[in-house]
Structures are given as structure tokens and as C-alpha cells.
């Protein structure tokens, strides 16, 4: 697809004597439907294309993008990218290559998803809403819910002869409901992403979101102090997500990560291993190559507590005299950066039950608020609002709310004392099992 446009770009480059460049194009097609009080509330269809050009002069890369794909716009974009390159000052070394393909065949496009008709999706979203409402009288509202699917086509070419493309798609469903008990309102959220619409079980999503809200009703305040804390798998993933940038080689090289100089040293407790796996079966970020066309791979980031690698693209890898880990990230509107693929804390050996009874008392966190504001990804400090459950001797006593947990992510990695075996990925394909932290500050 888009062969004509790519040909035109190569012609323009030739005419303008631009020798070093690459082109990145994505086309996204998506559909989503929402329901409110058993009526379809909204429908959304999207069809969008964008194209970004990077021109390299010496060491400097300039960028420009366009959503108009006519010849004139492509030419303007090429010229602007070149102009921008003239202002860039960098000691980056950018070398394009015609990278080889991976050997493994990935199943990332699922034609069946595209065949499901709108009517079926409407039935699904209505059932999802109804299942949450019907689960309990206390469920008063399901204000946010959606069933949808996304298809993304990516095409990359560079002046070294690389030209590759792939297409991936996924179906998803989520519901957020409110449960009321007395004067108190609590919310519960549940989601599922899959390669198969039939695995998006509306009843399950609706009921799980209801359960999550209901469980939190009757919450009590908690006395300030130090407690052992369990982050359930979803919150483990969210906190890892918030701090994932510290593993970026770019952040390290720019002096924005405290992991600078820590390769091969212990940065976490022995039981902690973190992996970035772009080849993971059924991963939401599984892909044959990254946004520079570099072949996908599995990278051990932390093995048994020791930092093994940062996340690299080809530019940061050159600077560190190592190989890319296939983590170049880019949108047609952005420059090449670094982004994790399927990035996760590996499963441990404990069951959830083991975690609850590890200490005579502990607090399990099932909801966090203010993650983007209460966390400093540079210092690792965080102080965020939380909700969860209080446990004694492995037994859930009561829900707790209106408190903040605070600490430091680097200390948290050292203080992970036990890890569950219930790995779950969030919508950004960052995953974690439940993790038990030796001690954290709670203020209520």
C-alpha cells in the first residue's frame, strides 16, 4: 500500500539531492461504540493517515510531517524536514540500514476481527452495561463503557533501501461503573483486549467492573504509618508504566535517569526480573520490527535484581557502543524516541494468598489516582492517592480509602519481597503480577 506516494518521495529526494532520509507512515482504522442506559450513546469511525519524513544532514536529523499526501504536500514536507535539520546540534550518529527480517512468523493481524458487524458490537456493549447493572442493585451507573476494534498499518522506508510494512489489529472492551452505598460512591473498572471478539466476554467485563466497585463500599480510613503493601497486578503495571522511562537509554544519556552507570549492578531484590519482549505471543505491542525497521527481539532488562540492559534504539545504541534492542518508537508526528514493547515484571512463585499472609498485617492497593502528577520520574519519588483493602493474618478485613502512599520507585524495586504469578498487561502493554513491598509510608 502507498507505493505511489513512497515512489514520489524518493523522486523528490533525488530531485532535491537529499541523500539520507527515512519515511514513516501509519494508517489507523478504528471503530468504537458506547452504550448508556441500554441505548447506543455514540459511534465512532476513524480513518486517518499520517506521514513523517526525517532528513539527516551530517549528524543532524530534521523532521516534518503531513496528513495531506498529494505530491505538493510531500514535497513541502521534504523541504521542511531538510530545513529543520540545518538547526539541529547533536553528537548523535544516525546511520540508516536495510535491516533483515525476523525469522519468526507473528500472528498480529486477525481477519476475523474485521468481519464482526456493527450490530454484534452493539449487542455486546449493551450486554456489558446490563451485566454491570444487574449484578447488584447498588450499581447505579455505568458511565463509561466501550466495545471497539483498532487496525494499524505501518510502513517504513529509508535511503538505504529498507522498505517494510505490517498490519496489526485488536478488539477490546471496557466498563467503568459506579456503586453507591449510603452516601459513598465507589468506582470499578475492568477491561479486556484480545485477538478475537468472541473472547471479549461482555458479561464478565460488566460483572468484574461491578464487583470491583462493590468491594470498595464501606471503606474505612487508615491510620498513618508504615505498612507492608501489595500492589495488585493492575496497579503493579500502572506504577511500572509510570516509571518505565528510567530504563530508556535516551533518558540515561540525557542525564534524566538515575540508572546512569548502574549496568550490571544490583538495582532490585533478587526475585525481580523485568523483560521487554516485542515477540511475545498475543502481546498488544507484538510487532516484526520497531519504528526504525530494526528487527524485534526479547530483551532482559533486569535479571534476578541485576540491571542487564537499557532500552535502545539505533541512535542511543551507537552512542553506548552496543546494539539496538529494537525499541525505537515514533509516530508520524514525532521524532524517533524510545518506547517499551511488551514490558513486564516476570511472574514470581507466590500465589495471591501467599502474599496476603506473608505479614501479619498488610494493605493491598487496587486503585491509584494522580499517577501522572504525583510521580517524579527523575527522582523516583511518588506520593499518590490510593484505595484498597486492609488484611490481617491473610484475611481481608475491610476496604480502606482516602489515603496516600508515598515512597521512591528505586527503593521500591529493592523492597519487593514476594511476587505473585498472576501477570496482567495494561492497555499500554506494560505488565506486572501482584507484588509485595516490605514497607511503605501511608498517610490517611
Amino acid at each position, binding site marked *: 500500500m502507498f507505493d505511489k506516494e513512497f515512489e514520489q518521495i524518493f523522486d523528490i529526494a533525488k530531485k532535491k539531492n537529499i541523500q539520507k532520509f527515512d519515511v514513516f507512515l501509519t494508517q489507523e482504522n478504528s471503530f468504537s461504540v458506547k452504550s*448508556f442506559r441500554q*441505548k*447506543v*450513546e*455514540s*459511534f*465512532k*469511525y476513524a*480513518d*486517518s*493517515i*499520517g506521514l513523517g519524513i526525517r532528513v539527516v544532514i551530517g549528524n543532524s536529523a*530534521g*523532521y*516534518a*510531517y*503531513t*496528513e*495531506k499526501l498529494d505530491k505538493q*504536500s510531500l514535497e*513541502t*514536507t521534504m523541504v521542511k524536514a531538510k*530545513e*529543520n535539520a540545518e*538547526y539541529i*546540534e*547533536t553528537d548523535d550518529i544516525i546511520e540508516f540500514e536495510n535491516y533483515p527480517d525476523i525469522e519468526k512468523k507473528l500472528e498480529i493481524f486477525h481477519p476475523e476481527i474485521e468481519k464482526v458487524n*456493527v450490530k454484534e458490537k452493539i449487542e455486546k456493549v449493551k450486554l456489558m452495561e446490563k451485566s454491570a447493572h444487574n449484578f447488584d442493585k447498588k450499581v*447505579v*451507573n455505568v*458511565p*463509561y463503557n466501550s466495545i471497539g476494534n483498532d487496525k494499524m498499518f505501518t510502513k517504513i522506508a529509508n535511503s538505504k533501501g529498507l522498505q517494510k510494512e505490517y498490519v496489526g489489529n485488536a478488539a477490546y472492551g471496557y466498563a*467503568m461503573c*459506579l456503586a453507591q452505598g449510603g452516601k459513598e*460512591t*465507589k*468506582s470499578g473498572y475492568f477491561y479486556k483486549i484480545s485477538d478475537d471478539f468472541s473472547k471479549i466476554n461482555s458479561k464478565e467485563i460488566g460483572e468484574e467492573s461491578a464487583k470491583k466497585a462493590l468491594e470498595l463500599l464501606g471503606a474505612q480510613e487508615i491510620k*498513618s504509618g508504615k505498612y507492608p503493601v501489595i500492589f495488585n497486578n493492575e496497579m503493579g503495571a500502572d506504577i511500572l508504566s509510570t516509571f518505565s522511562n528510567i530504563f530508556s537509554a535516551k533518558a540515561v544519556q540525557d*542525564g534524566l535517569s*538515575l540508572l546512569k552507570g548502574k549496568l550490571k549492578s544490583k538495582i532490585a531484590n533478587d526475585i525481580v526480573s523485568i523483560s521487554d519482549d516485542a515477540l511475545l505471543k498475543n502481546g498488544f505491542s507484538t510487532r516484526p520490527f520497531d519504528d526504525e525497521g530494526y528487527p524485534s527481539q526479547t530483551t532482559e532488562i533486569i535479571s534476578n535484581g541485576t540491571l542487564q540492559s537499557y532500552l535502545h534504539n539505533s541512535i542511543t545504541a551507537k552512542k553506548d557502543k552496543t546494539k539496538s534492542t529494537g525499541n525505537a518508537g515514533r509516530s508520524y*508526528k514525532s*521524532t524517533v524516541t524510545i518506547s517499551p514493547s511488551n514490558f513486564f515484571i516476570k511472574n514470581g512463585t507466590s500465589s495471591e494468598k501467599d502474599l496476603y499472609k506473608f505479614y501479619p498485617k498488610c494493605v493491598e492497593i487496587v486503585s491509584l*489516582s*494522580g*499517577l*501522572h*502528577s*504525583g510521580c*517524579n520520574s527523575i*527522582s523516583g*519519588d511518588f*506520593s*499518590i*492517592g490510593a484505595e484498597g483493602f486492609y488484611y490481617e493474618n491473610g484475611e481481608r478485613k475491610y476496604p480502606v480509602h482516602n*489515603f*496516600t*502512599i*508515598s515512597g521512591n520507585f528505586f527503593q521500591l524495586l529493592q523492597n519487593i519481597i514476594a511476587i505473585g504469578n498472576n501477570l496482567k498487561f495494561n492497555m499500554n502493554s506494560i505488565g506486572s503480577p501482584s507484588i509485595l513491598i516490605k514497607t511503605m*509510608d501511608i*498517610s490517611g
Partner: protein
Amino acid sequence: MIKKMLLEKVLLKALSNGADFAEVFVEDTFESKIQLLDRKIKNSIEGNDFGAGIRVFYGTKAIYAFTNNLSEKSLLAAADAVSKADAGKNEILKIDLMSEKVISPHKIKIPFDEISKSEKIDFMRKIDNSARRYSELISQVNVNYLEKVQKVQIANSEGVFKSDERIYARIAAYSIASKNGEMQTGGDGPGAFKGYEFFKSINPQKLGEKVAEQAKKMLLADYAPSGKFPVIIGNGFGGVIFHEACGHSLETTGVAKGASVFADKMNKQIANKCVTAIDDGTVPNLWGSTTIDDEGNPTQRTILIKNGILKSFMIDKLGGKKIGMESTGSGRRQSYKFAPTSRMRNTYIAPGNDKFEDMIASIDFGIYAKKMGGGSVLPGTGDFNFAISEGYLIKNGKITKPVRGATLIGNGAKILHKISMVSTDLKYSEGMCGSVSGAVPACVGQPSIKVDEIIVGGRKEK
């Protein structure tokens, strides 16, 4: 942009299955960003966003499609798709678009393209140099320049046909202070609905010093205490408390679904008597101001709360239809990729009569949150959480030492009653507000206010 005749054709197609309303939003946006980091120009990127969004209503059901292929064929295909999502009884056979000239009160003096890129970069360097000169502890400075010109065309089946141009300028600077492996940041990001004259009005030395001072202070600060205390929330960006904890709950997006604590509180006391809050899109050249909203309605100055009593929500077309109220010109969207919904513009707590000194003097033990960080609120419950980026301890009626690492946590509806003093020093602060219709430029604002009691999450026992 798109010709009137084609727009009429697209609207008719979108209505062809009996929809009640159809709208086309066309956008042609130019944006340029430059980043200075590590004393070097690291990024310079510019581009063109171009596309159209088509929306129809069947009752209160909204169907939205967007495409950036603006050929007649593709637009009609998108219109066909939205029309077929449902069926209605409405029969409209002809649409006459009435072209109306929009006169903007936001005058622009210097177009961005009159200034060379080198001059823009020089301006950025002055900020960088000034921050680094301020202290040896400053280890990194990041300066981001943004200019954006958004041209839009809005046409709907009621005959509305308007064009508008929105022009944005912003400079954001962050500095990092570090010592013994610890790092703290300071930042500021002023912006305006202005051309290049905005950058000429900013003193780069002062901006650099300001962000450096904040980072240095916080690096040397002790951890904040935790517990429940009175808190003075500083003017300007302190208004994020109102924006996050109350503002979002006053948008019809949440109100219409009953997912807002304020849904049934019209004309009721929802805040302390000293609180008046306004969402104002009319302030000339202010960052969050508009001329018309993204549905073609003229912008307004909307009084949300007067002396503690709820007076209005922020209302878009669809939200208004759902709750039976008129639009307040609040329909906004990030781009053609989003259906519009009710959003804030410049939202602030109006100045009161209290003196800042008296407010501090009234507190035995508490926190002065001079500068807030970002925040978030759980829709439906109003529970919020946001970080203090520059805080001080108050003891015996006096501001003592700087403290860091604190978070304020509470509930929007409850906190409004606990605001007991409002100062005279109203100030605005620019930001990007994110919600279902994307990120839009918005100002938060307030004078310094006193909250009698709020949970402070810190790292130390009181």
C-alpha cells in the same frame, strides 16, 4: 478548505437516513516545535494536520467519523457511514449554508513566519543560559517552543457556516537541580492566544531564573509532613485544584450521565459563600480563550458558581440537548479526530477580599502550596489527587522552610465548602487540559485561597 457546495452535499448525505442534525468540522493546522536540551537544539519538527470530522445526531445519540482524505468521494463515503449507523424520521431535502464572518477580539500582531528560526532559537538560549547561571546545582535545562495556527471551518444542517483561526504561542522551561544522586525539577510554561509578540513580551532571563530557583529550593528542601492540615493554595496554577476537582464535574460530559456529584445541585449551595467561579472564553488573547467554539457557537463568560451557589454548567450542543439547556459555547475538541464535548476555557476562582498575610497568620501549623503540579480526578466520585511542586511549611502564622514530595488528596464537592478565605491576587496559568475530546489549551486560575483542612500525603510524621 472545502467549498460550500460540497459541504452542503456532505451534510445532506449525512442526513439521508433521517438523522436530526449533521455537522462537518474541517481543520488545517500548522504546528512547529523546537526543543533545546543539554544546551543544544535537539528537535525541530513542523507539520500540517488536515482532515474533517462528520457528526450526526439521532436523538441524543451521536455518531462520529473522521477522515483525512478530503476528496468528494471519501467525504461522501464517511457521511454515508454515519448516516447508516441508525435510522430516523427527519426529512431534510435542502440545506442553505449561511456564510457568517467571525470577528475575533484576539488581535494578532506578529505572524510567526515573519521571525526567523534563528531568532526563535536565540530566545530559547537566553532562558537556558539564565537558568544555568542561577546556580551550580542546575544540571539540566529543557526549553520547548511551540507555535500553532489552527484554521477551522464549521458547517451544520441548521445553516451555520463559519471559519475561524486560532493562534497559539507557548514557551515551556524546565530545570533540574541535582546533588548527591538526588534530583528535583522546576518548571513553568506560559502561553497565549497570540502571535510572535507573545515571545517578545516574555523576559527570558526572569523565566530561566524562576525555574532554576524552584528546582534548587526543592532540592534543598526537607520532606513534607503528612496528615490533615490547613493549606494555603497559591495563586495562578493553584487553580488546578478547582479545575480538576470541580471544573470537570461541571462539564455536561459528566453531568448528563449523572456521573457528576453536581448533577442535581443547580441553584444550590455547593461551596463556601466566599467562592465565585467563572469559566471565561472572552478574555482577549488569553491562552484558553476562543472566538467561536468547535461547534460554531460564540464563546461566553459563564459564571459557574456565585457566592457558593451553583449557577451554570459548561454546556455543548449534545450535552445541552441531554439536560435541556442552551449551549454556553463550550464545545471544544483537540482536532478533527475528536467529536466535540463540553470543555473548560479559562476557569478561575474570582478574587475575594482577604489579605494574603492574614491568611498565613491564621494558621498555626500547615502548608503553603505556592505552586501545584498536575492532578487528576476520578469522574463520578470527585476524588482528586495532585502534587505540590513548590511547598513551604507554615508554623505559628509564618512561612518557614521549603518542603517537598507532598500530595493533596480530597474530594471536590467537600473541599469547596472548606475554602474559608480568598485573596485578591488573581492570576492565570496556562496548561493543556485532557478529556474525552482530547487536549485543548485551557487556563486555570485563582487568587491565593485557604482550605481549612485537607489530607497532605508526605514522607514524614507531623
